């Protein structure tokens, strides 16, 4: 039995929490690159001309429905579009330091994807080739992946009644397996998309920045963002800007204009939940002890108070009995035995009646 299967079985048995975090702890120690030989794509926005050939190719190779406006209509790039279930990649025009810059949006194929971390039915998988794939056959349709994705990528087929699925760029995984390039990369007329091993692409990106001082913002978006992504972006620097320093803080305003968020941190998004998930076994372990202890204390307190009450009652009863005895003896001395017997009977009856009354009212209170 392998480890995954073991976990699966435990998971379904509901004892998962402790082991779940064990796995999480292991996930927290991933070093980058996640898969050393995985592929990626470098998107050089200084080259992109916004021709939408990539969109057209994506639509074609993935057999997506034809859009309303043809791909030759380039005016749509001016509106802010996002990827949807039927458009896995879109090219948008951004105003960057007063100049139009085009950027292609698609799944970034994170090294440690937030969607995969968020999916509770294990639909998403980071493949060794770098792609993040989705298996719709076990998708429950909860859309937590869409909440989790920091890049607003996955789209959902809201119009589909019976088999609605989450859809996103697949990195053309089937084509990669056939040894072909992703559709968009192949279609790009200016090689704004460079396909290669992720580790090489980072070198290429750094080289381009170094060889063309003043041309690029000195930041390879996706190298570390959100724990690193397979698809990375180079952005053009503002014209006449001083040679950029190495500070990401300086790059942030430029990249923001390009719709790129540099505030995602350099750890996988999923790790943000690991602390909370790590607390699960502690609660499972401590809560029963805590509340069981509280219960035991309550019980013990009740038992002690009951004992004390009985003791007090017993003493009172003994006191009363002694008093009655004394009174009866006194009557016996003064009035004779007959009177004493009557007095004893009367007193005992009066006590019994009182006790019964007390018992009755006490019973009522208990309810």
């Amino acid at each position: 039995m392998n480890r995954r299967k073991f976990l699966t079985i435990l998971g379904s048995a509901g004892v998962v929490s402790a082991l779940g975090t064990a796995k999480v702890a292991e996930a927290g120690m991933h070093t980058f690159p996640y898969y050393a030989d995985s592929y990626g794509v470098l998107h050089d926005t200084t080259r992109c001309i916004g021709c939408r050939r990539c969109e057209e190719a994506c639509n074609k190779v993935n057999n997506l429905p034809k859009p309303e406006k043809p791909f030759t209509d380039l005016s749509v790039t001016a509106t802010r579009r996002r990827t949807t279930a039927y458009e896995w990649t879109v090219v948008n025009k951004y105003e960057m330091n007063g100049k139009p810059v085009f950027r292609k949006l698609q799944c970034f194929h994170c090294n440690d994807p937030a969607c995969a971390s968020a999916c509770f039915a294990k639909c998403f998988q980071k493949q060794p080739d770098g792609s993040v794939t989705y298996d719709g056959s076990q998708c429950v349709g909860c859309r937590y992946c869409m909440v989790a994705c920091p890049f607003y990528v996955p789209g959902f087929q809201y119009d589909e009644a019976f088999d609605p699925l989450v859809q996103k760029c697949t990195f053309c995984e089937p084509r990669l397996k056939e040894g072909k390039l992703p559709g968009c990369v192949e279609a790009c007329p200016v090689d704004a998309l460079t396909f290669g091993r992720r580790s090489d692409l980072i070198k290429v990106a750094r080289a381009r920045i170094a060889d063309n001082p003043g041309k690029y913002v000195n930041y390879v978006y996706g190298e570390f963002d959100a724990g690193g992504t397979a698809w990375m972006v180079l952005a053009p620097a503002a014209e006449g800007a001083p040679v950029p320093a190495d500070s990401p803080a300086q790059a942030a305003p430029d990249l923001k204009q390009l719709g790129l968020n540099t505030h995602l941190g350099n750890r996988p998004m999923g790790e943000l939940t690991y602390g909370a998930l790590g607390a699960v076994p502690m609660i499972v372990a401590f809560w029963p002890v805590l509340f069981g202890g509280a219960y035991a204390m309550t019980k013990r307190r009740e038992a002690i108070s009951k004992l004390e009450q009985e003791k007090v009652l017993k003493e009172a009863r003994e006191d009363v009995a002694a008093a009655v005895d004394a009174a009866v003896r006194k009557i016996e001395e003064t009035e004779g035995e007959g009177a004493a017997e009557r007095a004893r009977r009367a007193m005992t009856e009066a006590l019994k009646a009182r006790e019964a009354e007390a018992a009755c009212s006490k019973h009522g209170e208990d309810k």
Partner: protein
Amino acid sequence: MRNGTTLLLLAAMALAGAACLTAWGAGPVVAASLEPTDSGAPSAMVIFPVGEKPNPKGVGMKPVVFNHLIHEKKIEDCVTCHHTGDPVSCTTCHTVEGKAEGNFVTLERAMHATDIARRDKGNTPQSCVSCHEQQLRQRQCAGCHALVKPARNAAWCAVCHTGAPSMSSQQMQQGMAGKLPQAQNEALAAEVALAKKPVEYLTGLQAPYKVVIDALAEQYEPSVFTHRRHVSSLMERISDDKLAQAFHTRPETLCSTCHHNSPLSATPPKCGNCHTTNIDPKNPTRPTLKAAYHLQCMGCHKAMKVGRPLNTDCTTCHKQRAPQRAD
């Protein structure tokens, strides 16, 4: 020159010139023939790598012959170079080791630095290289120089670091100590400056008239590239540019923007020899043939602010091919 009058005039001028040369040209003072500057500064001077450390063997970088005349004509204000406002020679403050007067900025940096921080107040200094790089952003240069960054190799250094052929090693030592007499310095410089001859470039007439780019024709008809027109237009724009003349040191230099990465030649190899139609697994970052064409054409057009054609208007360059039958 179809005008006969012009031809006649030219002939007359040539005759006059020859006459002048024979009359006074053999005079003993060669330096005198450099045009004097407006500011009164020497027309050319040798800039030695002046240093304070003892240097008995006289080892140092080849001195630069600086043509003050040409630069002065190009620049509006002396303070562009003489950034302190005091027109002294550069090596007064900037020496090989740097000294306090020059804020310990070495001569090397003062001449070559490109990462000069902008001064909040006052004049931001320029180095030779930073100013030359700025010139490359002019429209007529930007087309090629957006694509081509001149290699910083020995040839590039040698453009300025010429030295002077007739300079003795004693003069060199004196120069490096900053003790060479002014007159000798100017004489050496003038000799070099006058000897400088512009290069004979290959012209558009030696290049093909039109090139049909058909290697990739699929969705579109082949593109007809007006090769000669492009070359001539580029050459015309920089014909008077002294900076270009100085640095374009080979007849084929201009060709090497597009015909890059191969040895300079009048018959360069085809683009497709290196740029494959599909991605080359051995060189995945090398642009494919289609991208190579587009990046070159669009890159140059964009940098030179050529309005037409639009990047995305494909049919300006290659006509849409009529739908073809599968067979």
